[in-house]
């Protein structure tokens, strides 16, 4: 069972990218996602679902995810989410 190590971020604010920041949530708070996106009305529900899919895959919880989306596609949203989770939970670190 991985433990939260630090607030972490992955991605950027460049066009077609998404900046995902993960901070520690309160105990039993589950997973909260705050999404800012230029495509929020058109794809907001799907972006959140794509982020949640990665969160579930790593089985992490009690976190707050802030995502600032600049028009990223699914593969990028999920890559940045995975990278942020790994950094936040110290996965793959020696």
């Amino acid at each position, binding site marked *: 069972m991985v433990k939260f190590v630090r607030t972490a971020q992955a991605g950027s604010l460049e*066009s*077609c990218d998404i900046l995902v920041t993960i901070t520690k949530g309160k105990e039993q708070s589950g997973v909260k996602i705050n999404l800012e996106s*230029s*495509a929020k*009305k*058109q*794809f*907001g*529900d*799907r972006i959140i679902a*794509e982020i949640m899919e990665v969160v579930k895959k790593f089985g992490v919880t009690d976190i707050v995810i802030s995502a600032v*989306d*600049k*028009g*990223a*596609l*699914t593969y990028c949203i999920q890559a940045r989410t995975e990278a942020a989770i790994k950094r936040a939970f110290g996965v793959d670190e020696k």
Partner: protein
Amino acid sequence: MKFTANKIGRKIPEELFEKKLIPFQGKGKGPYKVRKYAPKIRMRRPGEQKILSSIREAIKAGELTDGGTISFHHHFRNGDFLLNMVCHEIAAMGLKDIRLVPSSIQGVHKEILPYLEKGIITEINCGTSSVIADAISHGKMERLLTIRSHGGRARSIENGDVEIDIAFIAAPTVDPYGNINGVRGKNACGSLGYAFPDAHFANYVVAVTNDLVPFPNNPISISQDHVDAVVKTDKPIGDPKGIVSTTLRITRDPKNLKIAHDCVEVIKASGLLKEGFSYQSGAGGTALATTNFLRDYMKSKNIKGSFGMGGATEALVRMLEDGLFEAILDVQTFDTYAVQSLLNNPRHIEIGASQYANPQTSGCAVNLLDTIILGGTEVDLNFNVNTSTESDGRIQWGMGGHQDTAEGAKLTIIAIPLLRGRIPIVVDNVVSVNTPGENVDVVVTERGIAVNPESAFYDTLLKAKHLNIKTIEELKRIAEDLAGGPPNQPKTTDRIVAIIEYRDGSVLDVIYQVAD
């Protein structure tokens, strides 16, 4: 409200705000009146003076009342201060229920938002952008926004669909008797083409300037016999940095360069690129790149065209100077280089909005175009083009000469990226239509080129094996595969906040208030 479907299947109400609406029936099939509108005759006796000391005096002299109509040109683009100045004055004078008919509303005009909310300005006729467009989308204006093309606006003024009480003309230079040009002075903007219908058909015309010059002004774009009053003010009527660009930047994005390159390949494959070729393109980054690629090709093959039309930019002017065109017809000038060219080069010709694009005349310039390169916010499977709303339903832009050039030109090319961020640009049905598919020949994206099966160039272009031809359905599928599906439909209320007119005055589409 009773609705009828127009030719492109859009539902149009029979009546809005006591005005009967005529649904679009196809190009060339629109309504038209028998005679042009005639403004009041105004007289100046010998010895009378035209100079007024303030805008307020001009508003009084023009006898503007509640419910009146005022107009402006947008040749100062995002450097325009005059529209705001006049609206502030009108509000201060306690007038209300005013209809605003500028040729476009830009970001700089956000100052008039409170007047929409207070019912001082209750109706606007033109393409809008930025804060005002957003406000109208959210229902903050009492009456309707009517979106017209450049040619449609000229038609509406000349046939009396719009009667202007006072036309305010921001004049880069004007003499005390009202002769105006746009090529000199600190606010030089080049062509004043969009102001011509206003000057000729309004019931009172006021020139406002920071640069009063001795009589007679030279050259004369708008002549004294149309101008009733001249206001000289020291308050800047425009910001030169917003009026013209010192250099417009060509796109460096390799994706847009590819689109530009492919546009030229399509023109070449069409067979139109030969002696006597005529061309129009815009001032955006991709359009400029296309103009430059075209120039290189025409130079290398020694092709001499007949005319270029603009949106005059340095890129287009250099083609003229290289001898690639006989002349440029200019209804709007974008940068300093082009302004200087209009001033000095006899082959660079200023034209008015009606001469440019009014379909209800003895023949406007767009009728003679071989090819036009246009943009858009969305395109659908019927090749209809949206230029005014974004995929979330908000009004964000006007349409310029899109509708006019698309109908007039032999080969109409829409050059757009397949996606903007995650949002697919090719969709089943666009949110609102500005240009009907029957006027569109080709859609060029970075991932493929779609040719309208109804286009006269269909067989010719499909024979060009080096072009990455796909069907419009394939393009939509590629876009949706990348985006993970089509975008969610916009959420709207059932209040109509805007209508999109076709250039003949019939109605192409309506826009609903967004539900937030």
